């Protein structure tokens, strides 16, 4: 829609940077290989710690939404995803604990600054992750007692169920990209520098927890898929940055007028979110302001009707009759909206407020929108709201010279139409608040003679207020209908503004059943989750085996081995509970490789190998409404102890 940075810029960068997080392999003399590998492990751990820190913030942002919800509400609203969020958060904190030990180290390289390129990709990814999160946070402000307040129309989108799920899905994809690279480094066959074995083991343990994040998301996904459209919406969330207020100076081309209309529409929608609350006392609340904004909304609707009819004519010329028909229907809807707004403006006849004489900034912004849409709709580059200039309508050819111009103008009209329900809602809310505060008045002269009021004005009778509010309700209904029809055209022509519709649907998905049902018919995202080869398959490949049948058999052997390990692990968990000696499982590089393969397969039950707490403790730790879902350092320490080898083995 605009040239502003969007979250997708940074999410895509993270994905690209994590593709080769280890960086290029540098030639190292054989005698220095052990020291170089130790340095790489330490540096990778440092880079991973940076990524995990930001990933933990992402999950904390998401779980913050649960603060005000009961467990029942959480289950009803988020289903399996609530569990996935807490498991992911738990896993990230566990991974962070392991990686912090791997960073500090215990051997000869401890405390020494690592050299090499092993974390170039991770460092870059951590930076992109941070910027991406900061971008999302621009839509919020800090409120009293640490509460998070919405400060843009995108804030409810960021916290919507579809977008938060998409965000966790992305976090899981990133974790999945890092895990095999870290594990490969930790379990590589390079000579081990004395005293650094534990660092490599801890790095591998951290990577195992990264796979846990992904398997938690996979479980949730099987019940309630993330949609491709949700990922697109997440990626389209822009930086919250309002363009400065601009007035057309005359002579702008259609592209500039479309851009100006879009920026102005965003400003109006932003302003609409902030008006209303102070109508009970603010001197800026005046009848002039509300009459002005209703009149400007009338003219904006009228201009949109002109534009939609011109676009319909142009679409017909371009040989897209379906689009032309829909544009004509939208134009009809715009005419209805215009008439409704005109009635709302007329509803102020002989109604006023206790303060007069000023126009609010919000009303002034609505006038800007009428001007921008008017310049786009009319031929005269100096068109204004007066009769003075020519009122000739811009020709369809001038509006959209080529088929490629159609989406741009449709987007501008869509943006303008999207503001109208917001104006109706904001002004209606102001009127309601002011009426309750006794700030709506009528001239005494307009009352029947039976009223004996010794003042120029009297409080507006309830019947007059009801008529006024009814007119605004009609304007809202007609504007909403207009927006819906234009949004359908925007989707048809793939106008950039169609993201507004996706954003609204995402917000409504949580509480409008029709929207939720419609979403279920959409395309789920196709996640790329290649499972690395298991030890048998890998060894055969290392031996140069290319025969597909042999490799498939090797893969089946690996899977059978995985299953056997899982069965035994679960059997022991059932028999011994939390006291089962699972620490044996990770004690050698070969055993760790098997476990890594198990975790990478996405089997959620494999987590039990890493996390065998006592049943009571498990319930406490994994209960979504428990703060203890976030692992404590002491727990992570015990977890590490379980994974420590009984005897030194080559990682």
């Amino acid at each position: 829609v605009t040239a502003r940075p969007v979250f997708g810029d940074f999410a895509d960068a993270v994905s690209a940077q994590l593709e080769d997080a280890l960086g290029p392999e540098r030639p190292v003399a054989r005698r220095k290989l052990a020291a170089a590998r130790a340095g790489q492990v330490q540096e990778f751990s440092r880079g991973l710690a940076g990524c995990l820190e930001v990933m933990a913030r992402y999950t904390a942002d998401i779980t913050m939404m649960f603060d005000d919800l009961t467990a029942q509400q959480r289950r009803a609203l988020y289903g399996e995803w609530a569990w996935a969020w807490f498991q992911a958060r738990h896993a990230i904190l566990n991974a962070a604990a392991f990686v912090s030990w791997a960073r500090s180290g215990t051997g000869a390289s401890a405390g020494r600054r690592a050299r090499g390129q092993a974390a170039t990709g991770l460092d870059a990814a951590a930076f992109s992750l941070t910027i991406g999160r900061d971008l999302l946070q621009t839509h919020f402000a800090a409120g009293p007692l640490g509460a998070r307040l919405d400060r843009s129309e995108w804030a409810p989108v960021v916290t919507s169920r579809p977008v938060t799920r998409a965000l966790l899905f992305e976090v899981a994809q990133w974790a999945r990209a890092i895990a095999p690279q870290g594990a490969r480094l930790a379990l590589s066959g390079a000579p081990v520098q004395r005293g650094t074995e534990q660092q490599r083991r801890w790095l591998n343990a951290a990577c195992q927890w990264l796979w846990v994040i992904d398997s938690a998301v996979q479980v949730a996904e099987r019940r309630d898929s993330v949609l491709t459209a949700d990922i697109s919406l997440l990626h389209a969330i822009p930086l919250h940055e309002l363009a400065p207020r601009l007035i057309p100076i005359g002579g702008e081309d259609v592209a500039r007028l479309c851009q100006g209309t879009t920026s102005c529409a965003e400003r109006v929608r932003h302003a609409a979110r902030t008006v209303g609350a102070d109508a009970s006392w603010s001197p800026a609340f005046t009848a002039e302001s509300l009459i002005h904004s209703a009149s400007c909304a009338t003219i904006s609707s009228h201009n949109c009707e002109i534009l939609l009819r011109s676009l319909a004519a142009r679409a017909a010329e371009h040989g897209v009759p379906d689009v032309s028909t829909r544009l004509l229907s939208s134009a009809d809807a715009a005419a209805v909206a215009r008439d409704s707004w005109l009635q709302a403006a007329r509803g102020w006849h002989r109604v006023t407020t206790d303060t007069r004489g000023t126009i609010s900034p919000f009303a002034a912004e609505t006038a800007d929108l009428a001007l921008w849409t008017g310049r786009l709709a009319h031929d005269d580059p100096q068109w204004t709201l007066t009769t003075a200039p020519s009122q000739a309508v811009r020709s369809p050819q001038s509006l959209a010279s080529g088929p490629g111009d159609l989406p741009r103008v449709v987007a501008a009209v869509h943006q303008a139409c999207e503001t109208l329900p917001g104006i109706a809602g904001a002004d209606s809310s102001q009127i309601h608040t002011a009426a309750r505060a006794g700030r709506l008045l009528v001239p005494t002269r307009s009352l029947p003679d039976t009223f004996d009021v010794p003042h120029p004005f009297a409080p507006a009778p309830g019947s007059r207020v009801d008529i006024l509010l009814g007119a605004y309700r009609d304007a809202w209904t007609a504007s909403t209908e207009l927006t819906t029809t234009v949004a359908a055209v925007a989707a048809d022509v793939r106008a950039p503004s169609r993201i507004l519709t996706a954003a609204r649907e995402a917000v409504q998905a949580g509480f409008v059943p029709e929207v939720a049902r419609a979403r279920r018919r959409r395309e789920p995202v196709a996640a790329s989750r290649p499972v690395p080869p298991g030890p048998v398959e890998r060894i055969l490949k290392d031996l140069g085996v290319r025969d597909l049948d042999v490799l498939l058999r090797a893969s089946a052997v690996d899977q059978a081995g995985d299953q056997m390990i899982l069965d035994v692990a679960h059997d022991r968990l059932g028999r011994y509970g939390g006291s089962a000696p699972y620490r044996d499982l990770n004690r050698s590089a070969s055993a760790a490789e098997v476990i890594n393969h198990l975790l990478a397969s996405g089997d959620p039950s494999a987590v039990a190998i890493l996390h065998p707490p006592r049943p009571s403790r498990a319930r406490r730790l994994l209960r979504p409404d428990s703060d203890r879902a976030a692992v404590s350092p002491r727990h992570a320490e015990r977890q590490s102890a379980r994974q420590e080898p009984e005897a030194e083995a080559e990682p």
Partner: protein
Amino acid sequence: MDRIAGARARLEAADDLPAILDAAYEAFEDMLTVIEDHQDPGGGVFAAFVMSGAAAMNGQNAVAGAPSLPHTSAVRAGPSDAGAAPGLSGGEAAAAVTGLSLLLVSRLDAAAGLARNVADRTACALAARHAASVCSLLGGAPRP
């Protein structure tokens, strides 16, 4: 006599503050009737008539705030049988309303000079500003 001509005659005949305010209040009402009759989306001057309707409403509300405005209208004792502006085109109606708004500006300025009460002066000044705005929107003299 049509509404605009009647409003002009009453404004010109008014000689003291309450009479001017009374005539101005009703003149805004008459002006609004004519404006609303010409708020035709197909007429080419739709935007100007919509905005001038808003200004006329604001002008009437401003006059209503003057303490010296009589509580009952002396100029409209009975139902008016005058037409809004019979047979006028959009351009002609705009010209007629512009003429009335210019007269309103001048009479309200005069009323502000006669007023001793600050609230009366403020109301007259504000109403004159809105009348000037109507004039400007419909192609008359520039807004002051």
